[in-house]
């Protein structure tokens, strides 16, 4: 389906075709025709666009995220990856386009909105409180309390639940009583992922989950992400610049170029070389287009 799309098809023809169609109609029809497919896709978008002033960042994004799948988003800086993720997590609103979660159309007005639909964004350092313990971070603002409105904390119960949950998802930390500031980068990322999934997130958006991590640290986080997706059915969208990491982590890769998805392939059917070539070809195309523009 995608062999010809990105590089070979004439750019203009492709976009006219897209613009002519009601955005993402093809996907919607496919999904309606195939009940199984609809159940399997936890999140899809139809024709998401976003512009900042004169700059058009997203020109009609159709993505599909299957249940339990890890979808990698590849693209150069400024290709719109981060904007797309910000729209999916409710931080920004699209100019047009629709978002469906579990088959129902949703309209996010805030991050909280998205969270209530089971979409959680995980930032490595942003979300955790370094001075609190692992279990306190895991239960932050969802504490187990006694005596009703008094808000007296049931620390032992939280410790027990935290230990149990971390063991379930095979996260190894020194102790649930360890302060997060004493943990390594990989352990912190693991705690952040654990918190997001413990709170029944079904869709995780991960923005560079392996940034600034050594090989062992990366391995720890990659194992956890794979375990969460395969054994717990958590679906994830991952942004990363490192192709090696993405190929290890993801089931499928989407390439974003110039505000469009130009490539959609499962990792088994593609390779780092192919992706690199694709990105370079795009770069060359832009350069030649620019030269043509200059000659004219």
């Amino acid at each position: 389906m995608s062999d010809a799309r990105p590089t070979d098809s004439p750019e203009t023809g492709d976009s006219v075709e897209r613009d002519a169609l009601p955005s993402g109609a093809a996907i919607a029809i496919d999904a309606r025709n195939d009940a199984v497919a609809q159940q399997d896709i936890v999140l899809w978008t139809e024709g998401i666009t976003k512009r900042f002033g004169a700059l058009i960042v997203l020109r009609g994004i159709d993505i599909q995220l299957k249940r339990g799948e890890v979808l990698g988003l590849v693209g150069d800086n400024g290709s719109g990856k981060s904007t797309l993720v910000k729209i999916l997590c409710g931080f920004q609103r699209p100019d047009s386009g629709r978002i469906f979660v579990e088959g129902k159309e949703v309209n996010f007005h805030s991050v909280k909105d998205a969270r209530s639909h089971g979409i959680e964004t995980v930032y490595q350092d942003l979300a955790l409180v370094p001075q609190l313990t692992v279990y306190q971070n895991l239960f932050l603002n969802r504490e187990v309390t006694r005596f009703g409105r008094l808000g007296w904390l049931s620390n032992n119960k939280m410790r027990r639940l935290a230990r149990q949950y971390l063991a379930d998802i095979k996260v190894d930390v020194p102790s649930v009583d360890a302060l997060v500031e004493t943990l390594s980068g990989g352990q912190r990322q693991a705690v952040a992922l654990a918190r997001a999934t413990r709170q029944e997130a079904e869709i995780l958006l991960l923005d560079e989950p392996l940034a600034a991590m050594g090989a062992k640290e990366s391995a720890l986080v990659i194992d956890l992400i794979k375990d969460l997706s395969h054994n717990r059915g958590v679906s994830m969208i991952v942004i990363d610049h490192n192709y090696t990491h993405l190929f290890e982590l993801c089931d499928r890769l989407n390439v974003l170029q110039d505000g469009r998805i130009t490539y959609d392939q499962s990792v088994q059917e593609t390779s780092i070389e192919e992706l690199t070539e694709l990105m370079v070809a795009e770069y060359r195309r832009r350069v030649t287009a620019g030269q043509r523009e200059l000659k004219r």
Partner: protein
Amino acid sequence: MSRVPPEEEGAAPASRYAERGLSRRVSDVLFQRPETTIFLVAIALIVYFSIRNSAFYSYTNVITMAQYIAPIAVIGAGEVLLLDLAEIDLSSGQVYLTAPWFVVLLTRRGVPLGWAIVVSLLGCVAIGAFNGIVTVGLRVPSFVATLGMNYVLAGFVLIASNDITSDMVGTTGKFGKIFGIGNWSEGLWGLGIVLVIWGLLKGTRFGLHTTATGGNELGSAEAGIPVRSVKIWCFVIIALIAGFIGILDAIRIGSLDPAAPGLNEMLSGVSAAVIGGTALTGGKATVLGTLIGAIVLGVLEDGFNLIGISANWFILVEGAVILIAMGINVQLGRMTARTIT
């Protein structure tokens, strides 16, 4: 320290962490507790003064110390909440001095004593709420906002009193005994308030959210914690308890000095908090340490008095204790960080 080579960090099996020996755990507890240093200092001082002068541990002297320590400990406990948020309230000492003036001024206008105290405390709540709203609403740093409030209140007292010393009201009968005059009144009230703040900070959602807000405000807000109202409540709590202990102190002493500087009392409270192990940068707070810190300050002042060293020396030594205790605390903190990671 660790038997595991550093390159195995993070990827080691679970068993690695279960192998910590008893001595390691004891030293962990000792080093991890920020109160350890100040606790040892307190013991050393108490032993030293007891040897130097047996009057130190006499019944009446212990009462004197309790009365001196109570307001420092209460204001310090309030400041712990704010330091935990990486904020500070410089007006707390002035609130402590102003609350009894509210009571006196109201009773002069014929308001019954009980109501005057209630209204005075409500006034303190309003002052705290104002401090909080200016800090989180107008984004004025709390250092500046509460410094302004400090001078506003100091000026108010001077104007309303015509700069004339006044007798305190409510100093008679059973009422006076319970609220300040009774031997253990101030000490017990102070201890009670400190324990309540301790429970609030360590035991409740509110306290946890206070620490979380101070440690990572953005992250806490992301998690849905109402960080702004948490902050405002902390300003309200310190104003309320500072005002209350101020009223008790005034009833015990029996008179009010309009020119008394509130900043001194506030700084004693902050000193107690800081030498007790509370960080100025937020997220690290200990009410227990603050109580011990206040005891150290009280023991120092009283002990120097007893062994006949002048008050001037007390100030110098207080400064030295703050520097030494802080130096040790920071170094211990760094050692702990190294041993765990």
